């Protein structure tokens, strides 16, 4: 099954690789500026370059095995992710209010869990076609598949990643045949139940506690501060930007977490409207390209997997850019392929490797 067919090489998706490489490259240049220290290669750059080489290996590994074998590995992979999540919950120390790192901060199982979840869901919907799902109760089992990892991530108090995982899982809902009326019914009942619970059941201190959980920025001003600074940084970029390493907001470190969650504001300040639109366009093409791969797939497992993989890029992009532009609340979701962060980069590259795998094997049968 490892036989390297010449056709595979001919069919390799160079376009996808180019898109990914461009985003990663811009991200690195941006990181270099955001963490710039005079006269030395700083720690963050060194670690990110190391993660990138690891990610490259992961990407190649994802290409090797014919994706159709993944279906058999889907459930074990999903189970391993759940076990890792549970282990984290039991043994990992609490850092910055949440508890999501294993092995001294080198592995974030919630990142892996996103891939485990889409593998498991793709397998499920491969066997139970989405087109045949017409009633709400048909969603019971896939719902459970999605909620298990989400629940474990919520228990780690990592609300950003939990929300992300939930959104990724629910991408598949767009393809079901459940009628609009059912959805409206669900929404009405759900909202009514939540309001009743909030107003009549929960005591004020419980309400506050829930709000505290929903807003993990324990410092009451930190989110407002970040939003203001981010706005100033983006705005001061203007049309053409201040130029590389010339952004005052960035270079004077007014932006907190400017190399992780707010990396895009650094780009917007230094490269202006032109640069930020350029990067956004790269993401948009990447997403549409991924959907094209899904459409060209010859089997439904591949098509489903491609949709899932696209959603692992789509949702964090929407949440992160929305937050940076002051359109969404400040929740700590990094920009995939772009922000500083090893675990996320390696898993993203692995996921995109799978997408290339799907793409180059589209003619193999």
């Amino acid at each position: 099954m490892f036989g390297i067919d010449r056709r595979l090489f001919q069919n390799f998706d160079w376009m996808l690789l180019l898109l990914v490489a461009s985003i990663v490259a811009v991200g690195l240049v941006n990181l270099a500026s955001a963490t710039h220290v005079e006269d030395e290669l700083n720690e963050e750059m060194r670690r990110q370059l190391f993660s990138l080489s690891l990610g490259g290996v992961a990407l190649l590994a994802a290409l090797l095995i014919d994706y159709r074998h993944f279906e058999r590995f889907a459930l074990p992979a999903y189970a391993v992710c759940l076990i890792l999540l549970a282990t984290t919950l039991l043994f990992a120390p609490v850092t910055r209010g949440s508890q999501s790192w294993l092995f001294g901060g080198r592995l974030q199982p919630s990142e892996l869990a996103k891939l485990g979840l889409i593998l498991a869901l793709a397998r499920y919907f491969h066997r139970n076609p989405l087109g045949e799902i017409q009633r709400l109760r048909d969603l019971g089992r896939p719902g459970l598949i999605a909620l298990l990892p989400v629940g474990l991530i919520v228990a780690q108090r990592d609300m950003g990643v939990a929300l992300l995982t939930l959104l990724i899982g629910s991408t598949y809902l767009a393809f079901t045949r459940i009628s609009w009326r059912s959805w409206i019914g669900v929404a009405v009942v759900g909202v009514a139940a939540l309001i009743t619970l909030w107003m009549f059941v929960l005591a004020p201190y419980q309400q506050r506690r829930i709000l505290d959980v929903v807003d993990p920025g324990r410092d009451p001003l930190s989110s407002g501060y970040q939003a203001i600074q981010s706005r100033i940084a983006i705005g001061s970029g203007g049309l053409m930007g201040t130029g590389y390493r010339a952004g005052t907001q960035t270079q004077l470190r007014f932006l907190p977490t400017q190399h992780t969650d707010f990396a895009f504001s650094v780009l917007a300040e230094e490269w202006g409207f032109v640069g930020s639109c350029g990067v956004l366009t790269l993401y948009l093409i990447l997403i549409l390209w991924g959907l094209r791969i899904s459409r060209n797939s010859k089997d439904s497992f591949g098509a489903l997997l491609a949709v899932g993989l696209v959603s692992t890029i789509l949702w964090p992009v929407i949440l992160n850019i929305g937050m940076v532009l002051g359109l969404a609340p400040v929740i700590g979701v990094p920009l995939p392929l772009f922000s500083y962060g090893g675990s996320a980069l390696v898993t993203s590259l692995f996921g995109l490797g799978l997408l290339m795998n799907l793409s180059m094997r589209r003619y193999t049968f």
Partner: protein
Amino acid sequence: MSDEEIGGGRRLVGGVDPALTRRLPIVAAVMMLPFAIFFLRLFQLQVIEGEDLGNRARRNSVRKVRLEAARGDILDRHRRELATTRPAFGVQVMPAELRRRELTLTALGSLLDEDANALLERVGTPKGRQRFVPVRLARDLPYDAHTRVESHLYALPGVLTDVSPRRFYVGGEMAAHLLGYTGEIQREQLEKRSFADYRSGEVIGQSGVERRFESTLRGRAGGRNVVVDVAGRVDEVLDEVLPAPGGAVVLTIDRDLQHAAEAAFRPEVIGGPAKRGAVVALDPRNGEVLVLASRPAYDPNAFAGGIDADTWKQLTEDAALPLQNRALAGQYPPGSVYKAFVAAAALEEKIVDPKERVYCPGSFKLGRRTYRCWKRGGHGAVNLHEALVGSCDVYFYQLGLKLGIDRMAFFGKGFNLGRRSGVDVGGEAAGLVPTRAWKERRFGEVWLKGETVSASIGQGFNLTTPIQLAVGYAAIANGGKLFEPRILLGTLDADGKLSRGPGPRRLGTVPVAAEHLATVTRALEGVVHEIGGTGARARIPGVRVAGKTGTAQVVQIKHTEGMEDDEIPLEHRDHGWFAAFAPVEAPEIVVVALAEHGGHGGSAAGPIVNAVLTRYFEVKAGKAAPEEPVPAAEGARVVRN
């Protein structure tokens, strides 16, 4: 392996779900929608508002200032301050904003009375991101030094002043062990889930009341986003969340009595060099703790701004153990104070006729060993009452042998000895009431009769803490009710309204009938008021006091035989105990005092009890106004990091 085998599922090669293919274009269109919004938003921010926001960035920027919350006060039962919060004035330097570094720091040095070179060295020449991390030069400046800096701030770019709340223990050493101290949160604490909403550097209660009631005392920090100009001066406040101060904790402690108890630990009061010991006073009607003192003590104010290594080392290595709370964690043989419980046990078990007399020649022989009575010449013929009044050891040796060790232990435990009392501040030691089974387990040896003899006068293996004895004596005083001692009276809300803590909690009833306790109480009154009683030092005019002295041996008599009191090395001197309650007809206060290595109970601990009772009844009779003892505060000073 063929393709057919690979898929494994129902749908195999070629069968893409038609629902998927049909919906994909719609889904793609929906996915493009947020991107369209992003492009528009970028256009708005960068092209339309760009110039405006760019100016704001150039005009220097928004800075976040954290506003620390004041910790809640700790008050005594009459709402008098035990611990409060005062402002501490500090100075920081932002290296990136310093201009003419040497000149600025030299000027600052002269304002702070500090050596300019030392300041230059502490600020250093940080590079990169470090230039934006403020360096703290002073945490707790005297008010006038702070004013001097403040009024020259315009000429000192890069120098920042701040005011932060700082813990202040009103009485210095007063009730130090009970109140505990605060300090920066430890690394290990930060990693625990229960401290998830703390940030590093935050101040947290590390012992005593400060730790136990941390969640009430801790406030909620606020902050503000401010626009600062080039010189670091605040131009405009954008958002502000005011800090919410912590809630006040009201203790059952009476500050006045606490002060009296601690002041009594002076050579001129206790007539000896002993400065170590403990005092516990309780209300026997409900278990509320009025006094909880331990000596020697330390000044928790030294911890408030981070203690320096030398002071800490000195405190932890001091042989007198100033950090130990002797009232709760100090375990000592009870000595003759224990006799009241032995007497109650014998009465309940009906193995003694209170009228029957036993002859005390000054010693007692068991087998080949001779056990001495403390009174060399002997007490002569004494009954139970007289034996307690004169603290006759020989009488109790025989009583103990009749009871046997296990029965004695049953009653000892019945008065809550050898067990943590459950006082709500925590940090207690359990003490020990020995039994046959315990010795078997602990040493694998059988119990010896001679050990029963020692146990009957509270020697041997017996270990008690001052608070245990206070609980036991409170039960004698109140007719047999055992109360869990309480420190917390309640908490105050923002309007100063008291919400009471949990009320008195009964641990149970002692296994002795009230009439027998009354018999014991009559004898204890005799200890203080009759001729020949050992506790005359606790007498106070106009009040009937009941009490018992105790002198706990630390080493065997042969080591100190024939020595004058002041020749005996301190560590070999006896511990003096005194346990008392008053007024006898309706007891309101129990006081237990321990003078560690203080010598005889009557002379060493009696005056301490006397001081507390005197103060209590003077204030009660209105003869003395409750004073406001505010011992001199430690002067504020420049603190180095």
